[in-house]
């Protein structure tokens, strides 16, 4: 297989685009396409300050690398979750993220969940009795809250995450199976800012996960290869596997699924539901918007575990 641009031996084939590229041209193509998506979906400009949520994984580190190469003002945010599970998962992720930032002279903010809430994620989930034995929902809640807090407190214009097309297609698949209209309405490359909520963008949302892995490998980015120990057996991974089987038989199926959804949404498929959207109220403790009056879910959880801690001591 030959590179379409130079005719040399190809390193990657992307049947959904009918495109094969050598290493050199693939490493050019990914940032070019990212720039195209940033402009197409009006994510941010070079004058705006971007906070990139980095986990030490291939997608978020690649995103940070690409934005840096494209000349955007992009700083990193790493949230130390305190997940060990015998493989020092969080410690290793943090080490790789710090190494990445230091090698490129980039600014990295670090938030320690244990310092902020009194407990690392697994214990926080246990103490708060949320998530039915798995810490994933608590982890999501904490990350959403902390990402927004840092973006807002430090004056960033936009928060960027490394979600790729497989992540998006898996979420879309799950929400479609359940016809979760409120979630479908909010899924997209850009979630606009609202009072108290930073704008969220996903510049990699049109790249297959396979392409992002290839980018990280070819670029020589050292990332955490091990999956989060709590993600093993998760529904999102199951959906990704199902979609990959479909993709194998019908190249382009994942891309079409996602892009057709965006087009349908743009045409007003969920228009009626927009009129019944909830009013948001500021949380009296942290000030972040919440759907019901009173403390937000994050502050309620922290209050609950703090009370238990005080009673135990």
């Amino acid at each position, binding site marked *: *297989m030959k590179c379409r641009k130079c005719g040399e031996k*190809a*390193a*990657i*084939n992307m049947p959904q685009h009918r495109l*094969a590229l050598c*290493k050199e041209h693939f490493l050019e193509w990914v940032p070019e396409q990212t720039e195209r998506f940033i402009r197409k979906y009006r994510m941010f400009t070079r004058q705006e300050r971007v906070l990139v*949520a*980095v*986990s030490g*994984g*291939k*997608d*978020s580190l690649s995103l940070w690398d690409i934005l840096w190469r494209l000349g955007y003002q992009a700083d990193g945010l790493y*949230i130390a979750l305190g997940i060990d599970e015998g493989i020092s998962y969080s410690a290793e992720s943090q080490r790789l993220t710090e190494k990445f930032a230091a090698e490129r002279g980039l600014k990295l903010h670090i938030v320690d969940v244990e310092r902020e809430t009194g407990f690392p994620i697994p214990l926080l989930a246990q103490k708060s009795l949320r998530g039915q034995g798995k810490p*994933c929902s608590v*982890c*999501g809640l904490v*990350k*959403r809250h902390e*990402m927004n807090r840092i973006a807002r407190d430090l004056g960033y214009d936009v928060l960027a*995450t*490394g*979600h*790729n097309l*497989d*992540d998006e297609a*898996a979420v879309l698949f799950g929400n479609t199976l359940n016809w979760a209209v409120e979630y479908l309405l909010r899924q997209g490359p850009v979630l606009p800012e609202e009072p108290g909520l930073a704008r969220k963008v996903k510049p990699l949302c049109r790249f*297959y*996960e*396979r392409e*992002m*892995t*290839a980018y990280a*490998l*070819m670029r020589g980015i050292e990332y955490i*290869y091990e*999956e*989060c120990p*709590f*993600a*093993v057996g*998760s529904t*999102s*991974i199951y959906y*990704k*596997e199902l979609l*990959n*089987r479909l*993709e*194998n038989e019908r190249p382009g199926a994942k891309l079409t699924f996602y892009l057709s959804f965006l087009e349908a949404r743009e045409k007003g498929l969920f228009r009626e539901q927009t009129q019944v959207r909830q009013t948001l109220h500021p949380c009296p403790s942290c000030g972040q918007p919440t759907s019901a009056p009173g403390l937000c879910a994050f502050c309620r959880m922290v209050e609950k575990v703090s009370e238990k801690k005080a009673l135990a001591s």
Partner: protein
Amino acid sequence: MTAKLVLRNREYEVKSGQTLRSALKEAGILPESVIATRQGEVITEDEIVREGDVIKLIAVISGGAEEMP
């Protein structure tokens, strides 16, 4: 006349002389779920697997994290 595919800590012995795509099929691995490397270089699925080759497969799927993959 065999070669090896290595995915995480598991080894799959496959026939050499076939394309990587066929070798992956023989091992029951979806091409979409891996990136293949030979001697550190990323290779495409139409490459012929040679006798004695050790092809390292990098799993591409990550998940479970709602907000920060």
